[in-house]
């Protein structure tokens, strides 16, 4: 079991100090000046220009300039603490130290079910790790175990990320209320049963998905609940904001030695601006999650303002380039977060998954995370099969360069881009899996096999079993 060092704990106390002593600033001023104006200025200063039509940029100098732009954003903007209305700032020495001491590996899970996440670079042949799960898609209580088993039974999935419960013991789950704790405990109890059924008791769990505040997380990371070897979450709110609740999680994780994962979803067309601004926000945001939370893995899932996805053609190069910037210049263990528009039992979900996965793996991410199907909002519209597909595609393109990935991703984008506005939510788990066997129906399997065959014949990608 890895223990946090006294130095790490002291550092986190200093982080908490920043939330109490940083300059006071109005939130609107932070949004408009520290985020929007600053990012616009950085786009020009570092010449961060790339064509939206190029799905996976392959310009190393541009990637390195983007890294510098992201570092400058982290340095000058920092993180806004909503509770104290203060700007938490890190100086250059602190950021350099943070980057320098970032571990290049992380072990999640335990025993035979553990996985070691490895730092990768663009075009690397090193095996990418895979997080599979609905990542917070709401599901009814009576379907939770079957749905989660559909992921846990997939051998290519290295870490499992929970669904959220629509209700707990028939009651609504209210953020910050006792019902949040009840919901998180129910999530823990049910997912452990799932791991037993899958014979993977040590598999790391992304948790707690029913904890919008620190309450549910802290209450259930204890005896009989979630374990230190699980994958505990910390979020930056868009754009670059935190709360006491998130800082409570961070200090708790540091104190008890939890594995901590940060996630951040910049809004395309919001204060970060367009695709170029979003790429800077991703780089700055992922560095700041290491700085603010001590996260050892972190993902970005930028959101399209009208479609709520990150597979829109404009967002693919922003993510790919940001991942290249970070993987070329740091040891951060970075992840994507696959949130397609389309839902299960459609061909489009698989095209979207493949496009973002190939763009990201070729750009040097260490973890593929997904799939938050059908934009993550439709109850029970998720299944293990799309996560299996993401894992297979990820492994099939290890060693692929960004330039080669670009050709494939552009072709995939042309297959789905025009239909994204239709918001095809696909089918519910109830309609696409046999609940007794927890296996996909013939209909869903046929769709999957047809697209897998397309990837093989059109792009030469061979999906491993």
């Amino acid at each position, binding site marked *: 079991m890895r223990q946090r060092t006294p130095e790490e704990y002291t550092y986190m106390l200093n982080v908490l100090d920043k939330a109490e002593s940083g300059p006071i600033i109005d939130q609107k001023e932070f949004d408009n000046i520290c985020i929007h104006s600053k990012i616009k200025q950085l786009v020009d200063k570092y010449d961060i220009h790339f064509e939206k039509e190029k799905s996976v940029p392959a310009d190393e100098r541009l990637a390195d300039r983007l890294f510098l732009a992201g570092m400058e954003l982290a340095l000058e903007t920092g993180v806004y603490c909503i509770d104290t209305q203060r700007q938490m700032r890190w100086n250059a020495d602190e950021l350099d130290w943070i980057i320098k001491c970032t571990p290049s590996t992380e072990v999640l899970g335990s025993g035979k079910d553990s996985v070691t996440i490895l730092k990768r670079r663009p075009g690397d042949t090193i095996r990418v790790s895979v997080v599979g799960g609905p990542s917070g898609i709401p599901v009814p209580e009576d379907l939770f175990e079957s749905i989660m088993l559909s992921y846990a039974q997939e051998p290519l999935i290295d870490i499992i990320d929970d669904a959220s419960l*629509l209700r707990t013991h028939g009651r609504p789950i209210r*953020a910050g209320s006792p019902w949040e704790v009840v919901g998180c405990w129910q999530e823990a109890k049910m997912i452990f049963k799932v791991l037993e059924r899958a014979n993977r008791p040590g598999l790391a769990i992304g948790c707690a998905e029913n904890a919008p505040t620190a309450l549910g997380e802290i209450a259930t990371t204890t005896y009989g609940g979630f374990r230190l070897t699980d994958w505990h979450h910390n979020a930056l709110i868009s754009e670059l904001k935190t709360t006491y609740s998130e800082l409570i999680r961070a200090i708790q994780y540091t104190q008890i030695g939890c594995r901590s994962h940060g996630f951040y979803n910049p809004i395309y067309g919001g204060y970060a601006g367009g695709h170029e601004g979003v790429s800077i926000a991703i780089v700055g945001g992922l560095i700041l999650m290491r700085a603010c939370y001590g996260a050892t893995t972190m993902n970005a899932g930028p959101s399209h303002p009208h479609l709520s996805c990150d597979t829109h053609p404009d967002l693919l190069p922003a993510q790919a380039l940001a991942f290249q910037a970070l993987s070329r210049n740091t040891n951060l263990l970075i992840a994507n977060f696959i949130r397609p528009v389309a839902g299960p039992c459609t061909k489009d979900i698989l095209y979207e998954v493949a496009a973002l996965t190939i763009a990201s793996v070729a750009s040097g991410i260490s973890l593929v995370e997904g799939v938050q199907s059908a934009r993550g909002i439709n109850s029970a519209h998720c299944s293990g099969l799309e996560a299996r597909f993401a894992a297979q595609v990820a492994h099939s393109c290890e060693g692929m360069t960004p330039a080669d990935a670009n050709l494939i991703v552009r072709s995939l984008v042309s297959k789905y881009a025009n239909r994204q506005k239709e918001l095809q939510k696909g089918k519910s788990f109830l309609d696409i899996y046999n609940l007794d066997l927890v296996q996909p129906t013939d209909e869903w399997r046929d769709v999957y096999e047809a697209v897998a065959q397309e990837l093989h014949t059109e792009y030469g990608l061979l999906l491993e079993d």
Partner: protein
Amino acid sequence: MPETNWNVIQNDFLQALLASNQVEAFQITRRVLSDNVSMIEFFDRCITPSLEEIGARFENLDIFLPEMVEAASIVENINREIIQPEIQKTVHDSDPANRLLPLGRVLLATVQGDLHDIGKNIVATMLKVNRFEVIDAGTNVTAQNIIAKARREEAKIIGLSALLTTTLPYMKDVVDLLVGLGLRDKFAVIVGGAAVTPEFAKEIGADGYGRTAADAIQVCKTVLGIIVAGG
């Protein structure tokens, strides 16, 4: 005023808004209105098409939220400082200028437990550019505070946003509390945000649901009876 001039004026006004140039936008407004042009004509031929263009550009992501917010803010200032004082001085109930008055006051809030505000900010701006008065109550607001503020501000519509499924119950609280306090008929309640579905809106007894900011405008107009549902 000749037709060609309106095209030039509208384009100049639009460019001033896109450049966040409040001084220029005010100058154009004062210049045009001093030329015996009615406020209705100015609104119809300059402000409305400019705002429609800005809304369309945001829909296409040719401009971004901060630019749209700034443009809306300039128009709000022009409306408050130039147009409304004139209307208040001169209009009678039957006066066509009445249609330049705000369509209604909307109180927007992200419900308790939820700190996400960008979606709400987009809706606020789109409503403002469509002549609604918007009171932004902020994020993480309790049902009690939402209702108290709506009463104090004499809002006609309460608009609620939630990104997290675990904060949806707090939307229902607002409706339940309005019923319990005997205030349900005083406010229309509309809901939206990533976690909200049309089914949920119906289940809690909301008066309207919008998936996008553009939907929110239609829903507000519908609940106020300005347009018929689906119109």
